[in-house]
């Protein structure tokens, strides 16, 4: 008898507890806490700017650390830990940095030029597992002049080098003498930034708190919580329930998010583009007319509309449309299957046996088009391209591979016909490692593109410091690339950050009165004035 009772009691008891928890759970969240909860798809790896490679780590590091220089909201380089700096041009250019005085690490120790030198030495140490080292290979010497002054001497002119000093500076007094790859510091970082590290629970959240001694002023927010949500459709749900305040969303979520009264959706063009790359070692693609035809035959507007709901711009070359080095005179190839057919016929590709597929010398125009699995946008591009090319008699066979296999078995050994990929780029226009012929063997020029003029221009572009001259060089590169079509440049997508409307930017108006403005987006994104963000209690009420 007892047994029967137990059998009934256990499930009844479980049900009871579950329903109590259901009815006690909070249904409304407090939307007036002065904190920012950011949703991220991945966890951070190293909270150390010289080791971090992933975007989650970079986000946190940007809160905790400062570089010598930084990008402002319009993506111009301005001083950060360096109050001022100067480039002395010449055969061996020198950058002289004057550091801010009285900047303190979060543990109270003063920041000095020795920390910068230490950061540089740590990056250059071969034992350090950092991918940043190539940025500094042309640095001949980093010399500390005094506590607040230092000089960086390059062995030859290298203008992209300036950007490399935006890297977060790490403290010598906490890291010298330990193995930087495995140091505890990478999990409990101490920086100079506007927020100090508080805690990190793996795969769940990272918390940073306002640094009241920050040299640009006390941030208005109390803390930032970086929350890991491994699925994008789930971060949408959390945005709607108020579990997170900020996240990037996909184009198909854009309209849904706009309808929510608590959320504001922003758009800005991202720094990068998607493309179809042709392996130029393959005789199919060695003729420029064939590559042009492949681009003419694609209705890229339609692909953009379908894959990104039209949220982006057609790319015309290797430079994102919003940047100063993008050549505005280059127009996108129009969709013209007729032109494509003519160009292919000129190159000798005609349908001689009437099977609907172009051929030349008895060989049909057929190739595989590879990309990585797990990226729905690239998969859709592959399918649409296959379909559109088939209409002019070209057979492309799409294949999807898991990312690591895709890179290590197909792309890096140059073992492919055509591939769909995207570049995310830095702010500096230098793309030497992608296009220079010296990078064919084991660099990122995996399509084996060779063009002497481009080689020359790429080299002179990175040796030139003046913006006007660089602009002319990169506009020329853009023009050549558009004609040559080593890739079919597809589009520059939009980033779509979504932010709760409870955040305001605090500005001091006349007589020190606080004014609240809505958060505005700029070229550099949303977070450029993060330290001025604030959640006023009353504004939330009026917003409802």
């Amino acid at each position: 008898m007892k047994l029967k009772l137990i059998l009934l009691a256990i499930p009844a008891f479980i049900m009871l507890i579950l329903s109590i928890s259901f009815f006690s759970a909070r249904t409304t969240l407090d939307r007036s806490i002065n904190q920012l909860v950011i949703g991220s798809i991945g966890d951070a790896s190293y909270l150390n700017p010289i080791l971090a490679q992933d975007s989650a780590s970079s986000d946190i590091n940007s809160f905790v650390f400062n570089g010598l220089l930084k990008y402002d909201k319009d993506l111009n380089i301005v001083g950060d830990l360096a109050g001022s700096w100067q480039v002395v041009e010449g055969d061996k250019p020198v950058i002289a940095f004057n550091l801010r005085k009285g900047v303190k690490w979060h543990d109270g120790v003063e920041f000095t030029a020795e920390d910068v030198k230490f950061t540089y030495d740590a990056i250059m140490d071969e034992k350090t597992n950092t991918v940043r080292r190539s940025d500094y290979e042309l640095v001949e010497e980093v010399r500390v002049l005094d506590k607040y002054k230092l000089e960086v001497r390059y062995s030859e002119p290298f203008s992209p080098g300036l950007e490399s000093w935006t890297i977060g500076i790490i403290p010598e007094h906490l890291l010298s003498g330990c193995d930087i790859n495995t140091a505890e510091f990478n999990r409990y970082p101490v920086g100079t930034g506007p927020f100090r590290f508080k805690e990190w629970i793996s795969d769940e959240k990272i918390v940073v708190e306002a640094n009241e001694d920050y040299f640009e002023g006390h941030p208005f927010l109390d803390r930032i919580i970086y929350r890991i949500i491994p699925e994008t459709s789930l971060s949408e749900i959390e945005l709607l329930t108020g579990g997170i305040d900020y996240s990037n969303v996909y184009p198909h979520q854009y309209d849904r998010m706009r309808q929510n009264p608590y959320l504001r959706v922003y758009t800005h063009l991202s720094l990068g583009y998607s493309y179809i790359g042709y392996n130029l070692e393959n005789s199919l693609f060695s003729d420029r007319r064939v590559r042009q035809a492949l681009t003419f035959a694609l209705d890229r507007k339609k692909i953009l509309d379908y894959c990104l709901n039209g949220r982006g711009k057609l790319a015309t070359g290797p430079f994102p449309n919003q940047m100063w080095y993008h050549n505005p005179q280059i127009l996108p190839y129009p969709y013209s299957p007729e032109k494509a057919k003519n160009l292919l016929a000129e190159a000798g590709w005609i349908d001689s046996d009437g099977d609907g597929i172009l051929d030349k010398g008895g060989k049909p125009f057929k190739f595989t088009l590879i990309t990585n699995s797990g990226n729905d946008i690239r998969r859709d591009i592959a399918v649409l391209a296959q379909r559109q090319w088939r209409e002019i008699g070209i057979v492309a066979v799409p294949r999807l591979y898991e990312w690591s296999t895709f890179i290590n078995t197909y792309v890096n050994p140059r073992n492919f016909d055509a591939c769909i990929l995207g570049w995310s780029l830095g702010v500096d226009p230098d793309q030497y490692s992608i296009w220079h012929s010296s990078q064919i063997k084991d660099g990122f020029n995996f399509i084996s593109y060779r063009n002497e003029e481009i080689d020359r221009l790429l080299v002179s572009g990175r040796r030139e410091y003046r913006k006007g001259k660089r602009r002319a060089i990169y506009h020329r590169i853009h023009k050549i690339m558009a004609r040559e079509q080593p890739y079919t440049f597809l589009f520059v997508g939009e980033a779509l950050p979504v932010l709760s409307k409870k955040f305001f930017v605090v500005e001091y108006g006349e007589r020190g009165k606080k004014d609240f403005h809505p958060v505005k987006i700029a070229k550099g994104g949303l977070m450029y004035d993060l330290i001025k963000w604030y959640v006023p209690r009353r504004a939330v009420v009026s917003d409802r």
Partner: protein
Amino acid sequence: MTKYVLKRFLQCIPTLFGITVISFVIIHIAPGSPIGMQLNPKTSPKIVEEMRKNYDLDKPLHIQYFLWLKKLFSGRLYSFKDGKPVLQKIRERLPATLILNITSILLIFGFAIPLGVFSATHRYSFLDNLGTLLAYIGISIPGFWLAYILILGVVKLSGMPVLGMRTFAVEGLRFLELALDRIWHLVLPSLILAIGGIAGISRYMRSSMLEVIRQDYIRTAYAKGLTEDEVYYKHALRNALLPIITIFGFLIPGLIGGSVIVETVFAWPGIGRLAYQSVLSRDYPTVMTIMTISAFLTLFGTLVADILYAVADPRIRYGTK
């Protein structure tokens, strides 16, 4: 008995060694590499080479294997992905996985056994047939799909946060509220994890019970004049539970293994997600260590199952001739 257990335990060691060797070889032969995954145009080939050297990936495979063993036992095994000690990474995620899996096991046994017994004692009744139907649905429904439907449903209907281990963006909760909040966050994921188990094991329990009821000694019990309840719960159930007990042993490896899908869908910071991410990023040390632990637990689980069986069933004796 002790001798038998000891013998079985020692037998595990070469098996475990074999498993680690084979998995090590497979992982390293599989395409992909832990370095240069980001396709960052700023990484020069020289740096990739230097990093390979730092991670000992340039050494022959057998040397790498022994280095892995050495580092594992000296506690100096670091993840390729974030430089953390591998054992610490696993330990951090252990509580989340354990609590989720223990809850779901409680749900499975708490519901499956009574359901199975009920079905057996009310064989071919309407409720039994309904139970059969529901069990088939429960076994065949894809967990991730149901999870999404449940999440969407709960959020749409009640607006309650369901993801993760706790509610974010709340302050000043008292202990009881905190505990209930934690339990609430456990409800959906553990339910999803348990549904297949409840469906399967209740079927198992039903057939096991039915088999016992057909035995001669049950007829004897009836002949003695015992009531139906006494027959079922005193005599039949104990014997019918024997096969279920052994299943318990096989659940041990699952306790740690976690479930990639449920942990991902519910943003649960557990070991399943860690293992999956480590495979994707070719974090060899972490993958190998998790694999070794689950291999060990699987072996241990079968051993426990055997022992439990012997303890529960007097007809079974090991090691005596």
